[in-house]
């Protein structure tokens, strides 16, 4: 399993889309939003704007890393038959799944750390070492349900659609989860919706770790619920109402080829 894990991480880091979307976008958004809202001072969660936004963008970057390393890849691997090839080796199903999840989480780390470095350099964000560590650790583990969500997408959707769905989720969960705008600036209904989204759950864990106010109990519950549902979809038996995906059609030739 470790060999597969290493390869999974390597290929994810070699993917230019990873660099562009997971790394550049959160960093760019951080610089953009902190420039726009920087003067507003204290925000929701009782955190300084640069810190609050940093945590939001860490969640945002992590989200794309785990979604892109799971959904589109698994769908594609299934379509081209790599999943089947792996099944013909002694590697167990659990090993394949485990490598995918761990790789997706590992790939999220560079994007997360880079946002922190940007915040420290551009807005002089300073935190005690323990807070940095706890914040990154809880947010990192908090992305697990998103990895499972990606695996569920990869299992039930075809390659291109899986990429589109992951992309849409990335933006929708980012915007509705309060990662782009502080939730307090949103209408009441949106604030209620946000509380049930895993993106918001991850951010709340991070905000709390760096001294934010508010409870993490409901966030933990939300993340646990998403983990359970997505985990079941990704790893459980295929429900009868979802038809199995067809394996790539073969070229049909007629008869037998015989050379005298």
């Amino acid at each position, binding site marked *: 399993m470790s*060999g*597969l894990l*290493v*390869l999974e991480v*390597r*290929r*994810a880091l*070699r*993917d230019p889309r990873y660099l562009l979307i997971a790394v550049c976008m959160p960093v760019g958004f951080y610089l953009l939003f902190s420039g726009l809202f920087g003067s507003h001072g204290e925000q929701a969660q009782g955190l300084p704007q640069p810190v609050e936004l940093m945590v939001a963008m860490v969640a945002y970057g992590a989200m794309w890393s785990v979604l892109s390393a799971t959904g589109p890849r698994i769908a*594609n*691997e299934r*379509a*081209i*038959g*790599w999943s*089947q*090839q792996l*099944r*013909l*080796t*002694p*590697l*167990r199903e659990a090993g394949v799944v485990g490598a995918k999840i761990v790789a997706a989480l590992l790939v999220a780390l560079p994007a997360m750390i880079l946002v922190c470095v940007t915040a420290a350099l551009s807005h002089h964000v300073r935190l005690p070492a323990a807070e940095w560590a706890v914040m990154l650790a809880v947010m990192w583990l908090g992305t697990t349900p998103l990895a499972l969500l990606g695996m569920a997408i990869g299992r039930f959707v075809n390659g291109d659609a899986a990429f589109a769905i992951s992309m849409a989720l990335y933006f929708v969960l980012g915007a509705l989860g309060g990662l782009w705008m502080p939730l307090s600036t949103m209408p009441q209904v949106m604030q209620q919706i946000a509380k049930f989204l895993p993106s918001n759950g991850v951010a709340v864990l991070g905000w709390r770790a760096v001294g934010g106010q508010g409870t993490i109990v409901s966030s933990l519950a939300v993340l646990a619920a998403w983990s359970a549902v997505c985990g079941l979809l990704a790893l459980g038996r295929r429900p009868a109402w979802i038809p199995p995906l067809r*394996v*790539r059609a*073969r070229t*049909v*030739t*007629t*008869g*037998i*080829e*015989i*050379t*005298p």
Partner: protein
Amino acid sequence: MSKLAQAARLPGSFGRGWASQEDRVGEEPPARGGADRGLAVSVDAVTKTFGSTVAVAGLQLDIEVGETVALLGPNGAGKSTTVGMLLGLLSPDCGGVRLGGLAPAAAVACGRVGAMMQDAGLMPGVRVGELLGMVRRLYEMPAPLAEVVEVAGLGSLMEARVDRLSGGQAQRVRFALAIAGSPQLLILDEPTSAMDVEARQAFWSHIRSFSTAGRTVLFTTHHLQEADAAADRVVVMAAGRKVADGSPTTIKKALGRRELRCRVDGATAPDLAALAGVETVEQSGSRFTLHCTDTDAAVRALVASGLRWSELDVGGSDLEEAYLRLVRSAA
């Protein structure tokens, strides 16, 4: 049963006999666990249907350790379905499959089986060498890397990105992955479909060197030539059934009947059909086409018959037609 099949069932014509259900009647079913220990593959009355399509119907197939067996048949004959069941990717509706006495999934899990599937993809975004190294490490006793690279002809490809390989190159990588674990049983589904002639020849010589080490090879193909060149036993499948089973020579003899065309004035088809070596006769005016099991005998008989023949032409093997007749007779 067709005339051809009957002819082929004559005593001594096949080492293994033309297999049909009748051949197996009265044969003791192998005792569970013990008796099939010398068998690399044991397929016992296996049936698999997809919806209303019967892909494999009551297939019976035993392969001894060390044999190289070709599974020959047209598309839709049930070859790939059979391979899928051998590897545990599909489960039979009824009947049993054992690989070296183990269930397919168990045999795969302990690394005894290497497989190269027709539509197997390769992990994108990695280099050939990285992929091969990873797969080798999944096995307890992998084949030496140098040997795998040599046998699969990957020398110049190790640094190449998997997604930038040509069809034939990718096929070589698939083959390397299949033999990476030094498996006792190698199962190949249409292994040469993406290869050009040269690559094919090289590939089959690799397979032969692989099988000389006492290992068992089973491959599917719809090229009779390949089956002939690479296998020491050919199993012909049609419409989900085994319709022939024997050495390449005997299969070729049965399939490769020849035609004798001539003009005969004042003769009827039954006259010509009565000649030695002739099986069936087609008539078009005074021109006849004689389908022969033995053209030498037929020519001799024709000359000796006193018929007024002319424009004699001994045609090349019409293997395809013979094959299709065999397939039709099984359907």
